[in-house]
């Protein structure tokens, strides 16, 4: 088993026994380095040490030292999604970006911000709000999640439908490579095609290519009013899917659109409108006409927390992200229902109009969950979709977190080898064992 192997060679393995951690202390200051505790484990793999560099120079020095010493490194921001991905094949050092916590420049008149990776999303949004602006993403656990972690895990929610994903909002990154190189790409203007788009490469790379230390974003104005959310109950998942496709194909300019379905209730569809009061009013009435075959059940913005709510029962359940064509959301729900029924599981789904969705499987016996997830993945992949398993409960067995990266996998391996030839950063945690 991957996890058992990793812990025997990662922490107290032969290589790390020869390591002089004093060198690291000498390089960045003894007070920035401490022994790891149980809370620092990554997918049950225990690191030896935790470094919290005070600035980017120290961070580069620490990473370079680890790379030279053959110590595997896991970068960490707020630690909210540290378990995402496969268990590391080895792990010596947690490299925390926590102290890189400055908002470098909020050029509000230009609708851009440059921010250090360790800034929490909550802190950033409060600062931006002073000028009536926001980064138009809705990540999980915004109070603790950091910019670096959100980017590295590509975590976006219901706002993606209107504003695009992180890849569409990030305009620049600074990366520290394993050899200590500090590399900037992109910039701080919203339109820029000079050189390769490394901000996109770093987004969703789970810290396997370099450590993000700074990022620039395009911002959006905070909507002028509270906005309005309408919820409709559909007779079936097919009806819910039909409503989503029809709204997407209409001239409505909704901010978010999602379907919620679960084992013991009829599916619901939520749609949100922002803008001027007149615009919102007109759109609500159009939406109601489109949804004439469904029953309007409420007007609460609470429904947008549904994605985060899926994580409530994390001890006994698996949580996974799926991606399907928007017209296949109903089919995805049916696939989940069948797989769950087979193992006597409860299930719940939150799917956005983009075709991205999240599913929770809750089982009395965790060993059934692994089989169900494998079935789901196989079904989704049959038609261009995918399934990323973000969380599985203890005892669910070793299931690959990512699924098939397709025929570009050898190219991905070459990219990894170029950026991280010694396999220092998060070894084994990304697709195909990268």
């Amino acid at each position, binding site marked *: 088993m991957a996890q058992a192997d990793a812990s025997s*060679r990662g922490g107290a*393995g032969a*290589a790390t026994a020869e390591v002089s951690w004093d060198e690291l202390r000498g390089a960045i200051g003894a007070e920035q380095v401490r022994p790891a505790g149980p809370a620092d484990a990554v997918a049950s793999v225990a690191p030896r040490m935790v470094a919290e560099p005070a600035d980017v120079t120290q961070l580069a020095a620490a990473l370079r030292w680890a790379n030279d010493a*053959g110590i595997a490194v896991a970068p960490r921001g707020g630690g909210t999604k540290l378990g995402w991905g496969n268990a590391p094949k080895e792990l010596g050092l947690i490299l925390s970006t926590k102290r890189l916590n400055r908002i470098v420049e909020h050029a509000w*008149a*230009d609708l851009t911000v440059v921010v250090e990776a360790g800034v929490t999303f909550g802190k950033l949004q409060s600062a931006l709000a002073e000028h009536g602006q926001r980064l138009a993403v809705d990540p999980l656990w915004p109070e603790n999640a950091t910019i670096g972690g959100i980017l590295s895990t*590509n975590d976006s929610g219901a706002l993606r439908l209107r504003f695009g*994903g992180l890849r569409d909002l990030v305009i620049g990154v600074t990366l520290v*490579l394993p050899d200590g190189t500090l*590399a*900037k*790409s992109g*910039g701080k*203007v*919203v*339109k*820029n*095609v*000079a*050189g*390769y*788009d490394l901000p*996109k*490469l770093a987004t*969703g790379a789970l810290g396997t290519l370099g450590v993000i230390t700074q990022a620039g974003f395009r911002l*959006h*104005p905070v909507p002028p009013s509270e906005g309005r959310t309408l919820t409709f109950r559909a007779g079936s998942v097919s009806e819910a899917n039909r409503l989503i496709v029809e709204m997407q*194909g209409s*001239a409505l*300019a909704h901010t978010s659109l999602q379907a919620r379905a679960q084992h013991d209730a009829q599916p619901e569809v939520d749609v949100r409108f922002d803008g*001027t009061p*007149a*615009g919102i009013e*007109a759109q609500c009435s*159009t939406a109601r006409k489109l949804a004439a075959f469904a029953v309007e059940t409420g007007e609460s913005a609470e429904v947008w927390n549904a994605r985060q709510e899926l994580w409530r029962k994390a001890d006994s359940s698996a949580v996974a992200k799926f*991606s399907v064509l928007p*017209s296949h959301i109903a089919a995805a729900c049916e696939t989940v229902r069948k797989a769950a029924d087979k193992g006597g599981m409860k299930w719940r789904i939150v799917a956005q109009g983009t*075709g*991205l969705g999240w599913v929770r499987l809750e089982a009395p016996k965790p060993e059934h969950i692994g089989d169900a997830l494998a079935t789901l993945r196989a079904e989704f992949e049959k038609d261009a979709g*995918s399934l*990323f398993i973000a969380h599985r409960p203890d005892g669910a067995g070793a299931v690959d977190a990512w*699924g*098939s*990266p*397709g*025929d*570009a996998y050898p*190219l*991905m*391996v*070459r*990219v990894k*080898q170029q950026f991280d*030839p*010694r*396999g220092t950063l998060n*070894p084994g945690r990304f*697709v*195909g*064992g990268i």
Partner: protein
Amino acid sequence: MDTRILEEFRAVVGERGLISSAEELHTYECDGLTNFRVMPEAVLLPESAEQVQAIVRVCHRERIPFVARGSGTGLSGGALPVEHGIVISTARMNRILEVDLTNQRVAVEPGVINLDVTGRVSPHGFFYAPDPSSQSVCSIGGNVAENSGGAHCLKYGFTTTHVLGIEVVLPDGSMVHLGGRTLDAPGYDLPGVFVGSEGTLGVTTKVILRIVKRPECIQTLLAAFGTTGEAGAAVSGIIAAGMVPAAIEMMDNLSIQAAEAAVHAHYPDCGGLLLVELDGPAAEVASLMERVNEICRSCGATEIRVAQSEAERAVFWKGRKAAFAAVGRISPNYIVQDGVIPRTALPRILEEIERLSAAAGIKVANVFHAGDGNLHPLVLYDRRVPGQEHAAEELAMRILELCVEAGGSITGEHGVGEEKKLMMGKMFSEPDLETMQLVRCAFDPLQLSNPSKVFPRPRLCGEKPGRYEPHPLEVAGIAERF
């Protein structure tokens, strides 16, 4: 070129698909940037991805550099042939392969013309959003290479925003699929890196695009100001009011004159002209348009017109979209530049451009995508006047330096290509550029795909692709990789 290899190419693409006579090759010696010219050894016009693959395999085996070319409208020399190399034209790969209106996706071959995508889906109320001014002739493959923008990318984003998947023939002749029909395919965001890589990472053979539903209502306002400074203040006012218009375009007096001479858009004769387009639900657009009107008036607009019909709206845009070509009416030669600045630096940079222009005795007309700070200074000169071309080139590069100094970029949508590769060093440090080249080495270790572009100098990728260094733990037999 070796006749044996020419025969091999001929066998792949047929007689009609191979151009090797000197007079015919002249058509391909430059792209939209005509002051750089290189004669290719041959031009190949494949009709399928398999043919592209066969061509690239030969190139790889023989170490022949190749340059992919769409319609050749690029403005930075990206499709300029390279010495001893061939050109792979995608002109005959021009089929729209699949239209999925329900999921708002279209699959096309790279030679499909940008506007033809919109043409195909507009009867159903959709459009393809990226709209470079050359959209009636430029190809999707070229748009992918350059990450083309256009006037409406302020709201809708760039080519990269609308590309979901790409089929690519890598420089070693293998075929890969980056991204796909659904979002967030597992693994690195390679479509994100490939789009805008200016043909240096491989040849696009198929693209899955996102199309967008046409908004319920589109309104376009034209406002005349005494100066570009006043017009700029209005732009700031609109942005500060929390609006994201579909487009905000600005033209100065010289470019207005040129546009008038060329297409008679009936623009007012003024110091600074703004075009503001809002789209969305009718009720929303109506109330926001009133705000824009107020802001323009308070910033000193001398004349405001709102297009009353689709025809009038088209005329508003015609002048703007024709501006580059129109400058040919008022100057025998000109350089189009493509700098980006933080929008708020606009007044300062314009003043500086004016100063430099006066000092050099060379006129500069200015056209901007004002909403996102993308400047298109048009540096006017006469090649017949000794020294003027050189002075114009110097001035154009000095303007780009100003953009970099202001925290901006040397290119917003035209690409680095051949023209601006030496400017890359002004914007990025050596380690920044070395890091970008790591991507190049992963895709194209032999540097066969559009070599000598984008970067100031090539990087040696080592003897073999992706040189592998074993981890010390592997050497020690403690760990293994899969």
